[in-house]
């Protein structure tokens, strides 16, 4: 590749990698217990939830388990983020194409910063949902959880009653992160070219 095309190439790569959030889950929470060989897997996508293969409707199964401790039902239709997050990604892709066309250092930098901030806000938003589900428990539920808190970790592993819960980013988030790195590199190479031309 011609050296002058490197930033553009990197930015195109960033866009392709960003599409990974539609192909893979962003996060995975695994609930391990004796009765669930292999664990119950909850995959969180940019626009939906899914379970492990052959597990059936994971949300319904988790809701059945959670009703014993009075956790409110997870209803995907009532989570607006699942509707507008994909739109945000489409907009970012559009802006990314614009950035490729303009091919300017500040445009690449700007795109990177916006994506980074959005990503960070997304993780914070996810934390708020976890906190809400984990603390908003029905006091008349059959099982009263000590401290009335049943919050899975955002990142890491934790014992929750009979479950050992693991929560980690999944491929979607990894692709998103590499996409950011590409945008950052595009900014860097463009900046270097610019200063070289100046000399």
């Amino acid at each position, binding site marked *: 590749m011609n050296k002058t095309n490197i930033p553009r190439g990197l930015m195109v790569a960033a866009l392709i990698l960003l599409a990974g959030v539609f192909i893979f889950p962003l996060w995975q929470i695994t609930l391990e217990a004796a009765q669930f060989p292999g664990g119950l897997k909850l995959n969180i996508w940019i626009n939906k939830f899914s379970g492990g293969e052959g597990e*059936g409707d994971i949300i*319904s*199964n988790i809701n*059945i388990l959670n009703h*014993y401790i009075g956790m409110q039902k997870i209803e995907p239709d009532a989570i607006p983020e699942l509707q507008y997050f994909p739109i945000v990604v489409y907009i970012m892709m559009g802006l990314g194409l614009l950035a490729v066309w303009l091919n300017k250092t500040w445009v690449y930098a700007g795109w990177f910063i916006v994506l980074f901030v959005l990503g960070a806000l997304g993780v914070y938003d996810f934390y708020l949902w976890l906190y809400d589900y984990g603390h908003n428990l029905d006091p008349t539920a*059959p099982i009263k959880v000590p401290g009335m808190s049943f919050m899975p970790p955002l990142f890491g592993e934790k014992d929750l009653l009979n479950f050992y819960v693991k929560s980690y980013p999944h491929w979607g988030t990894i692709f998103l992160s590499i996409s950011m790195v590409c945008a950052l590199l595009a900014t860097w190479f463009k900046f270097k070219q610019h200063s070289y031309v100046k000399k």
Partner: protein
Amino acid sequence: MTVLAVGITALLFSACKQNGSVKDATSAVKGDAAEEVYVAPGEYDEFYAFLSGGYSGNITAYGLPSGRLLKEIPVFSKYPENGYGYSEETKPFFNTSYGEVPWDDAHHIELSQTDGKFDGRWLFVNANNTPRIAKIDLQTFKTTEIIEIPDVAGLHCAPFITENSEYLVSGTRFSVPMPQKDVPIDSYKENFQGRVNYVSVDQETGEMSLSFQIQMPGFNYDLARNGKGVSHGWTFLTTYNSEEAHTMLEKNASQRDKDLMAVINWKKAEEHLEQGKGKEQKTSYYHNVMDESTGIVESEVKKSTTLLNPGDCEGMVYFVPVPKSPHGCDVSPSGEYLIGNGKLSADMTVFSFSKLKQAIENEQFAGDHNGIPIIDYEASLHGVLKEAGLGPLHTEFDGKGNAYTTFFISSEVVKWDLEETTVVDRKETYYSPGHLTIPGGETKEPYGKYLLAMNKITKDRYLPTGPELAHSAQLYNIEGEKMELILDFPTKGEPHYAQAIPADMIQPGVKKYHKLEENEHPYVAKGEGKAKVVRDGNEVHVYMTAIRSHFAPDNIEGIKMGDEVYFHVTNLEQSWDVPHGFTVQGAHEGGLLVMPGETLTLKWEPVKPGVFPFYCTDFCSALHQEMSGYVRVSPKGSDVELQWSLDEES
């Protein structure tokens, strides 16, 4: 005196225990046998073995080599464990032209085949007493269809499958007047007939249909096999009582040195059928099929059958003589050798199919029976296995040129070379085996490895359980030159035949739960919001849901004396192994065991006013004990309105 006699007997018995057969049996097991049959916790068996249950009317699935019982599959008998035959959906399975028959004697297992090999789609089994054939789905391990076979009696000789599952072939064990009529029993020779029946199998759905029947002389048709490979298109059936005796068969049906094996060219029968040689006969029989989307069994009464008469159909039926009252009739993997096991003979007759065919072509006949040619015995003989044991019953194959035969009287399994007709090895069984099975042992490509012998006599094999004992089965490793006894386990009912198939041909397709969205039961409630109670005259239909850990509704009022209450319970769970049970006090129809996504119905007729509990009978969850409710019954004419609720919300 009596005490002394008992004491002496006990002494003799214990001496025998130490020095006699029991010790021999123990020492017959080699040192590492335990290792060979040990399936560690969490690991799976290598084979599924399906054993018929005889007079239990059911089938059992065992794992091999561990001998662990995996499941009892109810077929011809009511089964209180899961409500089979008690639920409104499954009751019609027992409809027959004799009325409701909720029991039978299930003998022979047949796994479906493609190209002469097991394909893991379906399992078929016969009912001996009230002639029927059932189909079991191997994704759900549930009976899904039962067809009655008309104008036969004692469907022992069934349901033998052809190499592409084209037909399930059966023969009548008892000849009877056909059609049934009131005649003196001693008019047997004049009035009694046999039938061989061809039930076709739909290759998409497995649905059975009686294609045609062949009118046969009044013998007792005992067992059969269909040809494969070179002999595909032919059926071979052993018969006894070619004497046509009607009393004291033990003696009178054992007079001749040779009985006859029927040889039927069913491809030829199809040609005759096409040429319109079949005669429509009036009859009446039931065909009961479960609709898989609703789980409801529908019964249909069929009114006619197509009969072929060998007299009108040239080249369709032959006989060949077999020594003394043959029982088993087995075809080698290549399809070339047919083995007639003469149960009163010490010899085993091996016919060669190519010689048999040649003899037919050359018309080497030694007379006829009512116009049916009898093929010359010598001309069709491959060889005779001389004095291998006493009372040969059944033979299977290992695909390496060996045959294995059970000997009932001498209580042993004998391995012999098919080509040379010489004995290779023999091992005792405990005691008196009937059938044996080798995984794939009746197919073109046996898997070999193990041999399971199913015994008729158990005696002292296990801790005693009074006069009634479980039948015993023994597992042998047959990989080496010598057979090795590796396991002994009790079975359920009286297993006759069994078939075993590699687990990986079934396991991946096994269904874990029913999809609720595919449930088309007319009384399904797909969600608690859909739960309701509807009155229709004196019938009350409760559309009930079950989910961990409550029913909806769980309070029902307004039921009156004289009502018929139908609880239609839908299990809303959509996860593996979360069944819910249901029953209500005083229910005459037992209980239900409802799988996830399924709807089952329990009929309840209250016998007195009051408030009666219903509850979940399967320990479904930590709060299973709380999974209950009440139904209030008011006197006839009471003004209590029909109402229902859950958590005080209607």
